[in-house]
């Protein structure tokens, strides 16, 4: 069977400017940050990013890589407002498709199920319809005759997700309390890249329900220890709150120069050095 392991650089070499890119996780939780950092080292730009937004959105926005964002929010959780997302919005840096969290979920379901849309009771009466004039409603063909919003499929060219464990074939396991929507991201994308804390030989002893992502929906697997840093990847590690605060309060060029100018190893050791300086 196919060994799908690759490096972050190999993943990024398969991405190109203008793509629609889905990013898994939620807020500042289990974001595929090593893959996002690899993306930042490339010249891939002009992206349509589909994300339950966290610092993935902030980093890509600060680096000017986003042409359009599809999101219901962007947050750092313990810091409610993602500063680089805010700044980018306030300078009108990219187009936004602002939809509700549930609409987003049904858009992923539609894409994963190869449906053009799914009807939802959300968006009606809100300004989501005003700011997304392309959104349409649909009338129930049954007796109720209800009018609902037809959320278009959020089909993506590629998806990036990060899980706790994976095998070389592309099966992925989450060990935390919440799967978020990572399986749907993989199924809703033409290609999906799964980074993990640790590669394992097999899942012979795994609790079956933890095996969230199946290999048929995964194109490449990357072993990236601490690859969700500074977001959480429980139970392997929680959010690096101190470092997140640094990220949120440091001017972008300064942060990028100190932490993002080298490769992933350089990043991880720069983070370690910074932590040592704090004690």
């Amino acid at each position, binding site marked *: 069977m196919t060994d799908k392991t690759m490096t972050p650089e190999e993943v990024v070499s398969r991405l190109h400017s203008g793509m629609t890119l889905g990013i898994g996780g939620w807020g500042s939780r289990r974001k595929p940050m090593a893959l996002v950092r690899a993306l930042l080292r490339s010249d891939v730009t002009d992206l349509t990013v589909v994300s339950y937004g966290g610092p993935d959105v902030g980093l890509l926005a600060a680096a000017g890589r986003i042409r359009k964002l599809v999101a*219901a929010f962007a947050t750092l959780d313990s810091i409610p407002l993602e500063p680089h997302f805010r700044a980018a919005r306030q300078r009108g840096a990219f187009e936004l498709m602002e939809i509700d969290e549930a609409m987003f979920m049904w858009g992923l379901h539609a894409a994963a199920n190869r449906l053009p849309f799914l009807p939802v009771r959300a968006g009606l009466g809100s300004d989501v319809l005003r700011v997304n004039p392309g959104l349409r409603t649909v009338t129930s063909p049954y007796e109720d005759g209800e009018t609902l919003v037809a959320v278009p499929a959020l089909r993506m060219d590629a998806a990036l997700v990060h899980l706790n464990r994976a095998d070389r074939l592309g099966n992925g396991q989450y060990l935390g309390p919440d799967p978020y929507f990572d399986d749907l991201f993989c199924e809703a994308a033409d290609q999906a890249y799964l980074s993990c804390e640790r590669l394992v030989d097999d899942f012979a002893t795994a609790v079956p329900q933890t095996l969230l992502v199946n290999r048929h929906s995964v194109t490449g697997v990357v072993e990236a220890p601490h690859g969700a840093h500074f977001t959480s990847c429980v139970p392997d590690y929680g959010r690096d709150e101190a470092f997140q605060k640094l990220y949120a309060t440091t001017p972008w060029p300064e942060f990028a120069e100190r932490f993002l100018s080298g490769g992933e190893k350089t990043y991880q050791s720069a983070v370690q050095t910074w932590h040592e300086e704090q004690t």
Partner: protein
Amino acid sequence: MSRTTTTTRAEYCVIACADAWRDNGEVLASPMGLIPSIGARLAKRTFSPDLLLTDGEAMLVGLDGTAEGWLPYRRHLTMVTGGRRHVMMGASQLDRFGNQNISCIGDWQQPARQLLGVRGAPVNTLNNPVSYWVPKHSRRVFVEKVDMISGVGYDSAAAAGPSATRYHRIPRVVTNLGVLDFATPDRAMRLASVHPGVTAGEVQAATGFPLALPDEVPYTREPTATELRLIRAVIDPDGLRDREVPPA
């Protein structure tokens, strides 16, 4: 007992929040903010024992934090659309018909201040009861017209038709000054009670649109001795509530 003099403003807020979940039955209480969280716990400990609570992550938990169920985001969203939930959300802006904004201030195309985004407000308001908590009642929050309708108000739901109004309900808005509801013929915001120490005039002065006013505005009810003890000794012994709403 002369509790009137000793009950703090924050404690009236807790009581007003707790009462939002009275007679709700076996639904998820989703409190956003500290005082609503204390209120939800108080309600569960007293008059609404069947309420469900979360740990703020992916578990349904009892009052002692013991897990009793699994509620990751995808299932939480089902709970929203299934209607077995009563959320108390925050609001950056709120208008007289209960339209709420948490998305941005100013022009949406290029906002003066980007806030959270609409999050789940559009789906929440159309599917399960949504109350609001505003710790600082001011004209900046209570505006004539919100900049971006995130949570749907009564007039917007009515304009959007039966699918929008079918499960739409905004039971109450609790603030540091009083309790507001929409129990008027045209569903315009009404001052339902003021917390002791506050006058209706003060609430109106802090509100950017005319409020419907009953002939006599009642006071928010007093906590019972048991409730006061639970708030002070059991649920919030460190007095964090006074940080969210300082004593008047």
